[in-house]
């Protein structure tokens, strides 16, 4: 019996440490609607700055002041980033802030490496909390008890601040109705800045408080970010008590789950999230999202298919691209093939995100299923490349049919997180089912058939399939189905009123996007000659979002351009610099600030402004 009690309390300690970092994310998320991807980076900075400060101030008396100071230092950095970067893009389309915070996370990773060096840094244990006490006959770390006490205290403080101060009232008002608060003369800018600062402060504090438990290291940010995000969503957006509850549930399930299934940790949080979201679409303590007012006053530019000049230009571009292998060497042809594959992948996500207004955080699932379907068909069933590619598409479609059925029952961020949960479940299956997928060692020897084996021929095959698919996606966008999908995006209520069945249309859209992503994945498998769980990873899903957002969500197929630029850039940067994340992150930040509508969005705005000016000049 005492063992189970100790295990329970141990779970509470993990829950507390998770809650401390997730609470900040929850606050930022709930108020500003920013998916702060840099939250993990701030957590890591908290640990590193804490380490340095403890080193300077001394491990005895200096320890606790150092922890507090590092949280303030991180909050200051966060405030600066909010004022210089995020403030410029609050008006940009939904999720665009994710791109900016993603870039910040990249930059911080390399800066931490430059400042603190490559080795893990182990700080001292907390003075006064170094040892263990006797808990029902078992030694239990006193520091864990401190964390268990701290988490409810932080929860109570947050609750008091938001419920009992004027500032808190204003923030809650802004959460519910930004325009109204602005109309009442409240300076939203400072409201958002202070909320962001508070959230980042908690991230820094959470990181610094980890020092007595683990060494400051370069993977801390990635370890924590998805888990924190998942906990926030399970709890319900904007509900800090919900986050607290979710942290406890996840940690306790893990503490006891590993007794029965020692391998469960790798997928547990995502399983819990999937189940919770299916049963309670707005998380444990969350409420239905208020209908956004984006449509009111915002100018939605009408999408048009290419006219004759556009079609000719597109055909010429493809013809021009087809000439590339004559001029370029094998390496460049290989890179161009990869860029084409990512253009198709981005186009499929773009179709879902821009056309359907459905932000998938787990689009890599279908890319990866396409890769695995093709690789398994080739290696385990001995099918040829051509059939294997079809097999990949089929597997991707099946995955999208099954996962999509559940996902379209939700909307907004909850939809996004459920797609993420399914992607992570697919990832963990690929990672664990060694007999079929080869586990993390993957499947190797996935090379094209002899007729397509030369880099130039595989390039032409990819060009034909990618260009054809992108043209097909555009055709679907401008078909009656595409109009129905867009109608649901712009106003679900009105679209349903005129008889468009939301779930069925969005489900179909999801499956179409999944199928094209699977084709991209199957081609990718043959380009690389191997398939790994990486093909389903969160980072690939995020890459997809980055490409689409960079191109511009307000455009018909800006994601294609975003993909071409982002992929070429990242291949070039990783090949030519030692600090690829720093360079890439800085470049994205510059692009984000310069083109808040995305690159193609900015191009279109510039063109329509020019046409508009010319038309005005012509009018009498």
């Amino acid at each position, binding site marked *: 019996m005492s063992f189970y009690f100790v295990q329970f309390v141990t779970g509470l300690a993990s829950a507390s440490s998770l809650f401390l970092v997730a609470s900040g994310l929850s606050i930022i998320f709930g108020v500003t609607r920013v998916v702060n991807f840099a939250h993990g980076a701030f957590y890591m900075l908290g640990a590193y700055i804490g380490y340095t400060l403890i080193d300077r101030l001394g491990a005895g008396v200096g320890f606790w002041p150092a922890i507090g100071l590092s949280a303030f230092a991180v909050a200051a950095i966060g405030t600066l980033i909010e004022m210089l970067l995020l403030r410029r893009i609050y008006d940009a389309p939904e999720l665009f802030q994710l791109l900016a915070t993603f870039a910040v996370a990249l930059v911080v990773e390399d800066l931490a*490496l430059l400042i603190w060096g490559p080795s893990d840094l182990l700080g001292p244990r907390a003075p006064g909390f170094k040892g263990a006490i006797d808990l029902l006959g078992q030694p239990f770390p006193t520091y*864990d008890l401190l964390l268990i006490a701290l988490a409810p205290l932080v929860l109570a403080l947050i609750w008091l601040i938001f419920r009992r101060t004027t500032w808190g009232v204003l923030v809650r008002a802004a959460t519910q109705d930004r325009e109204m608060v602005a109309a009442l003369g409240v300076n939203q800018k400072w409201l958002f800045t202070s909320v962001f600062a508070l959230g980042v402060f908690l991230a820094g504090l959470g990181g610094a408080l980890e020092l007595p438990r683990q*060494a400051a290291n370069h993977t801390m940010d990635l370890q924590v970010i998805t888990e924190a995000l998942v906990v926030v969503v399970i709890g319900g957006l904007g509900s800090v008590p919900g986050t607290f509850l979710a942290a406890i549930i996840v940690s306790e399930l893990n503490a006891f789950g590993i007794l029965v299934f*020692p391998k469960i940790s790798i997928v547990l949080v995502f399983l819990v999230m999937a189940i919770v979201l299916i049963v309670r679409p707005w998380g444990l303590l969350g409420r239905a999202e208020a209908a956004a007012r984006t449509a009111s006053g915002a100018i939605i530019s009408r999408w048009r298919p290419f006219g004759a000049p556009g079609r000719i230009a597109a055909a010429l571009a493809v013809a021009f691209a087809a000439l590339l292998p004559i001029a370029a060497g094998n390496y460049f042809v*290989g*890179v161009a093939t990869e860029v084409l594959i990512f253009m198709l992948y981005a186009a499929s996500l773009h179709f879902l995100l821009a056309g359907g207004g459905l932000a998938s955080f787990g689009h890599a699932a279908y890319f990866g299923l396409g890769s695995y379907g093709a690789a398994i068909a080739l290696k385990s069933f001995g099918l040829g490349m051509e059939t294997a590619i079809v097999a990949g598409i089929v597997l991707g479609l099946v995955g999208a049919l099954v996962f999509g059925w559940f996902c379209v029952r939700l909307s907004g961020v909850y939809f996004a997180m459920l797609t993420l949960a399914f992607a992570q479940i697919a990832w963990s299956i690929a990672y664990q089912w060694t007999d079929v997928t080869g586990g993390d060692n*993957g499947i*190797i020897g996935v090379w094209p058939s002899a007729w397509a084996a030369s880099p130039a021929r595989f390039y032409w095959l990819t060009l034909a399939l990618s260009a054809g698919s992108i043209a097909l996606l555009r055709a679907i966008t401008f078909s009656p189905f595409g109009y129905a999908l867009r109608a649901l995006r712009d106003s679900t209520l009105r679209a349903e009123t005129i008889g468009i069945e939301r779930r069925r249309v969005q489900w179909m859209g999801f499956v179409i996007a999944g199928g094209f992503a699977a084709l991209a994945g199957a081609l990718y498998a043959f380009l690389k*000659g191997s398939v790994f769980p990486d093909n389903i990873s969160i980072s690939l899903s995020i890459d997809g979002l980055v490409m689409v957002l960079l191109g511009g969500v307000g455009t018909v197929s800006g994601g294609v351009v975003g993909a071409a630029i982002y992929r070429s850039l990242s291949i070039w940067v990783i090949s030519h610099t*030692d600090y690829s994340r720093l360079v890439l992150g800085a470049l994205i930040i510059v692009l984000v600030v310069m083109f808040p509508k995305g690159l193609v969005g900015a191009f279109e705005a510039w063109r329509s402004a020019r046409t508009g000016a010319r038309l005005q000049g012509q009018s009498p």
Partner: protein
Amino acid sequence: MRTFSTVISSVFLAVLFATAGPAVADDTIKIGEINSYSAIPSFTEPYRKGWQLALDEINAAGGVDGKKLEVISKDDGGKPADAVTAANELVASDGVQMLAGTFFSNIGLAVSDYAKQKKIFFLAAEPLTDAITLSKGNRYTFRLRPGTYEQAAMLADEAAKLPAKKWATIAPNYEYGQSAVAAFKKLLSAKRPDIQWVGEQWPPQGKIDAGAVAEAIAKTEPDAIFNVTFGGDLVKLVREGETRGLFKDRAVVSVLAGEPEYLDPLKDETPVGWIVTGYPWNAVTIPDHAAFLKAYQAKYNDYPRLGSVVGYAMLKSAAAILAKAKSTDSEKLVEAAEGIRVDTPFGPITFRAIDHQSTLGAFVGKTALKDGKGVMVDVTYHDGAAYLPSDADVKAQRPQN
């Protein structure tokens, strides 16, 4: 829209094209090196210093066959697909004559399969998976470091001498952890049929919930623990385990924990008396090592990590193979590498013809505390040759052609 995209991509391709290196000069031999510099800097930074030192020494001594050796180094970001892109750039664009490097097992396998497909010589430095020389082995791939099986075998020898009868295992939940546990269990049970395996924990790599894992293992009341976690997970496990009394009166056998990369961060909290594989850089008595240590410290004003030795020995091996082949033709390089003897800081090693595995060994010893730092004591060098699979085993597992 697509017009715009093509213009952009063409511009980028043009940029790529323009920045491509000049044609191969006849008086240099180029080696393409790939590693996870940004993903696991704690290992790869010392590793880079290691091969750079070897490169300086080789070129100062006149290069290989009178030709200067040049290393073109690429980061793979810890992703197999990006490693293949890098390999393709090195081979198709930079015109390197051989590939070398890699850290993670899956990246090593991806590059080795690329090498097989493109018929280019590949010297894998670090990846520990046994598949790279056995089940997925190929003609063009050679591996320097002792693999998972060998390290587990060295430790199983020591573990068999312990009185412990009830064992539990803690390993990261991926191929490396799984193979290490499987090999250790098999070998130890063969030597000691009286042993019982009472518990196992498989935390995700990099995300161990150390308190819960420690309690779960303690509950099974083992006499001894076999640990495979390393890096950040090891630190967490040691802290939680020490505080919770998990390691009290229990023997612990731990793979890689004696490597400076993983031992040094533990500082004065290094657990005492663990049986580990590793690299006690200040206690090695092999003569070749003294020269290496002196040169390394003179150049970098820092002590070498295991990564430094791997990087150094990798480039020395590459140079020896190139010198023996007197050619940069892949087939000739393979023939030269099979059975070649190379001097390394751990003494002479041989690359076996049968499975392309080198006989580089590892140090086994016990952890101890000295002046507030973790060190290894009672150290013995275990030659890899003694722990490699038999010819019959290799023939059964490695594809023969």
